[in-house]
């Protein structure tokens, strides 16, 4: 790790102002991605602006069927939230599958969504649930937020403050973990609401998280595992690495979609 200066901020404004005054500053939340990258010397921020101690950035509120998860909420809190589980157990299960207990108690939903790692779990839920990404300056619909591997709609100094979504009628998440890293080799989140079914895939796409319209249409017509069993995605759009070929990932998209639907019934 290169030398860096650490700042603990207590308000969103303070953090944004500080960040705006630096060329090479970075926000830090759980640090589970950023610190590891810094240790490998792949990132060298001059300053770290810690968001975890800002009042209001952490915590879960449920009003009616509207769920709001503060950006600095660790995965473990989502995994164990009784309130969310009552409305959308799939996202609790997803959070419980991230990394190991250490990672789940440090890593945050805001950090994960802002980072948009192509193998991260949360982006699939955010996209399938048609969630709204709330920042210090605006609200962004999920369909506009994710813009490719590690790319999002966030501007340079913009802080993601919360994720908000309406609880679906049904939702399921199925993950096939990379045997080494345990990130998603392929993960599929399926959500059914009054306005239709959304299917989002993580871990597989060479452009990051993506939706599968054919599966959405098929499930919209008949919400059963068999409906997606015959639908395949084009391997040409998928990642290929030592852990999985594109063909294998295409197979996993199909199988995990089926299992996600199954688990939501």
């Amino acid at each position: 790790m290169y030398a860096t200066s650490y700042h603990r901020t207590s308000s969103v404004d303070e953090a944004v102002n500080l960040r705006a005054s630096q060329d090479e500053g970075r926000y830090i939340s759980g640090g589970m991605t950023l610190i590891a990258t810094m240790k490998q010397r792949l990132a060298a921020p001059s300053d770290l602006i810690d968001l975890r101690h800002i009042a209001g950035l952490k915590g879960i509120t449920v009003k009616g069927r509207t769920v709001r998860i503060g950006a600095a909420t660790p995965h473990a809190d989502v995994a164990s939230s009784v309130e969310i589980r009552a409305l959308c157990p799939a996202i609790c299960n997803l959070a419980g599958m991230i990394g190991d207990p250490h990672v789940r108690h440090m890593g945050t939903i805001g950090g994960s969504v802002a980072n948009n790692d192509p193998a991260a779990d949360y982006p699939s839920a955010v996209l399938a649930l048609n969630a709204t990404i709330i920042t210090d300056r605006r609200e962004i619909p999920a369909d506009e937020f994710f813009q490719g591997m590690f790319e999002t709609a966030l501007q340079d100094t913009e802080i993601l403050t919360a994720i908000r979504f309406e609880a679906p009628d049904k939702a399921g998440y199925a993950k096939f973990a990379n045997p080494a890293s345990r990130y998603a080799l392929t993960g599929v989140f399926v959500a059914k609401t009054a306005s239709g079914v959304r299917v989002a895939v993580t871990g597989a796409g060479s452009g990051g998280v993506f939706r599968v319209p054919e599966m959405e249409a098929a499930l919209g017509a008949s919400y059963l595992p068999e409906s997606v069993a015959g639908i395949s995605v084009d391997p040409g759009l998928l990642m290929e690495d030592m852990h999985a070929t594109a063909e294998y990932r295409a197979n996993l998209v199909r199988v995990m979609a089926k299992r996600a639907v199954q688990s939501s019934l």
Partner: protein
Amino acid sequence: MGMEGIGARVTRKEDKRFLTGKGRYTDDMVVPGMKHAFFVRSPHAHARITGIDASVALGMPGVIAVLEGKQLQADGIGNLICGWMVHSKDGTPMKMGAWRPLAIDTVRYVGDAVAIVVADSAAEARDAAEAVMVDYDELPAVTTSLAALGADAPQIHPEAPGNLIFDWQIGDPAATDAAIAAAAHVIEIDILNNRLSPNPMEPRATLGIYDEAEDHFTCYTTSQNPHVARLVMSAFYNVAPENKLRVIAPDVGGGFGSKIYIYPEEIVCLWASKKTGVPVKWTSDRTEAFLTDAHGRDHVSTVKMAFDKDHRITGLKVDTVANLGAYMSLFSSAVPTYLYATLLSGQYAIPAIHANVRTVYTNTVPVDAYRGAGRPEATYLLERTIETAARELGISPVELRRKNFIRTFPYQTPVIMTYDAGDYEASLSAAMQAADWDGFPARRAQSEARGMKRGIGMSCYIEACGIAPSQAVGSLGAGVGLWESAEVRVNAVGTIEVLTGSHSHGQGHETTFAQLVADRLGVPIASVNIVHGDTDKVQMGMGTYGSRSGAVGMSAVVKALDKVEMKAKKIAAHLMEADEADIVIENGDVKVAGTDKSLPWFQVALAAYTAHNLPSGMEPGLKESAFYDPSNFTFPAGCYIAEVEIDPETGKTEILQFVAADDFGNIINPMIVEGQVHGGLAQGIGQALLEEVRYDENNGQLLTASYMDYAMPRADDLPSFSLSHQNTPCPGNPLGIKGCGEAGAIGSPPALMNAITDAIGINTLSMPATPLKVWSALQAVQMRQAAE
């Protein structure tokens, strides 16, 4: 046996310190004036160094020195060596290329050390290391053994033309060829043994301290054998004479073989300490560990096994190519030869065996012994072959093994080894019963009903521990003897110190060695301390590897205890006016048998040191030492059974049960033995399902340089293990011990691969059986069937 004696499940004395964070590892050592090192390493797999410019680095904050290979060479520091001479079958000695502690003209793998930066802090050393400008002319690189033997492969060492280190053989080629020619059936199979990274929890570290006043060096290091480290650094690397070099291996967090060897870093830090006048510490990070710790395995073999019409094995022919990496590590030559091919008879009576082994240089990390060292490779090859034979001959794999078991002992194999004792049938039956082998078809039907593929597989392994005797290994080329030493010091108040040349880095010696003393003298283990790991405290010893500490190290303690006991009895007889022959030691008392005369142990000890009333002519004191050189290897053996279920949609394997039935001879502490087996099984299952070191074949970059890509087994990858022990005591040592440290890693990979290939009905799968590979294999069959 008593509450704490041999056979008791005593909890480990050392665990309190480890579990409360009070262990003291090399990186915990802090000495006045200590500075930190970082190594500049090659980013290329193969390149010529055309220049090193440290001027910028030298001006950076905290930097004390940047030292390079030419300076080291000018100071007379020698090259690293392989300590086991193997000759090719044409009689020529192995062709060892020069391994300089810091590369001078050529780098040969990614991670090869080029320079050392010493600075006030580790971070400053690392910052400065990035500013050391090394100019390279890149050369083509080769990473796989077969490619390295190719006609147009890059030449890695001038000493080894065609990258061939040696072309060695064992056994009788003519008899084996004749057996194959006359056979009713010949089974042929290609076997790959995947390359592994050992991954001890504690990464390597070293602290070099030069004391100018005494012209003396101290080396703290993560070593499994500090005396061997001192010997080698003194005799070959010219660091300092032995009496001017103290090596301390304090608490060491796992080794699995990778900490047997002397690496460049120890030598360079000692030298750098003298050069700079400050103590120099280096601690590897995890990526450096992947890049520089000796790897294991990496064999490519072809096999022919001949059977007569009654399915008796009549011959075995093996051709193996072993990848030794960019340099020959300390025992690298012995692993694919004397630790591998000598075990190719397995548990079977095979009249004719011939194995040919070629070892080659590649642009990869050096390869040396890793848990099991050669024996996992032999077991995997043999147990996959016999399973394949059973499938091809259409008979039960159990019956085929039973028919060919060795049943009388001692048994001389055609490949050097003389097995001294064993009962292979006992372990086989125990394992089959524990696994409910006969109930498998019904279980398979249940799985099939759920759309899953279920398989069962076994492996009957034999291995050789406590490599010995010294004369024999010397005649095979070993540069050292393989005995062990012990000193038993009874203090004046009766407490005891045992100084052992064995080294504990997870094995629990502080407990088991104390149990041995408790068993003999009836004293509590709390009054026994085990001292190891410091060349200034302990007499010359050979360290711990190859499951030798029980069979060899404890036998040395037994010999020293015999002497202590004899002297104590003489003193007691004298004090109690009895005949020496009537003295017995029981429960901490020294008694005259058949009388009520008795002295507590501490009084006999005290008498030895007050020396007021000793038998005439007897020297005061109660302290004895012994060196023990075994008469033979020991031969642990057993039967492992794995039952798996495979999800055909994803290719993922779930281990439903894993049964291990082991014959380790007598057991000192069953709890510790079970722990050793569990750990070994985890590593063997890791090899079969998850682990593989991979290089980019085009440029020699290590692709699996972190846990993001190198799949280590985790708790939820493993089932609960079902263990049992059979016992044919080893006749070769006083305790009847065989050793248990490696069996789990040796026996488990073939059991799993036999189960997986049984489940999917495809025999050609190689390790690791990742979901990707299993699914792809199933896909290929489906495509073929669809095409037909």
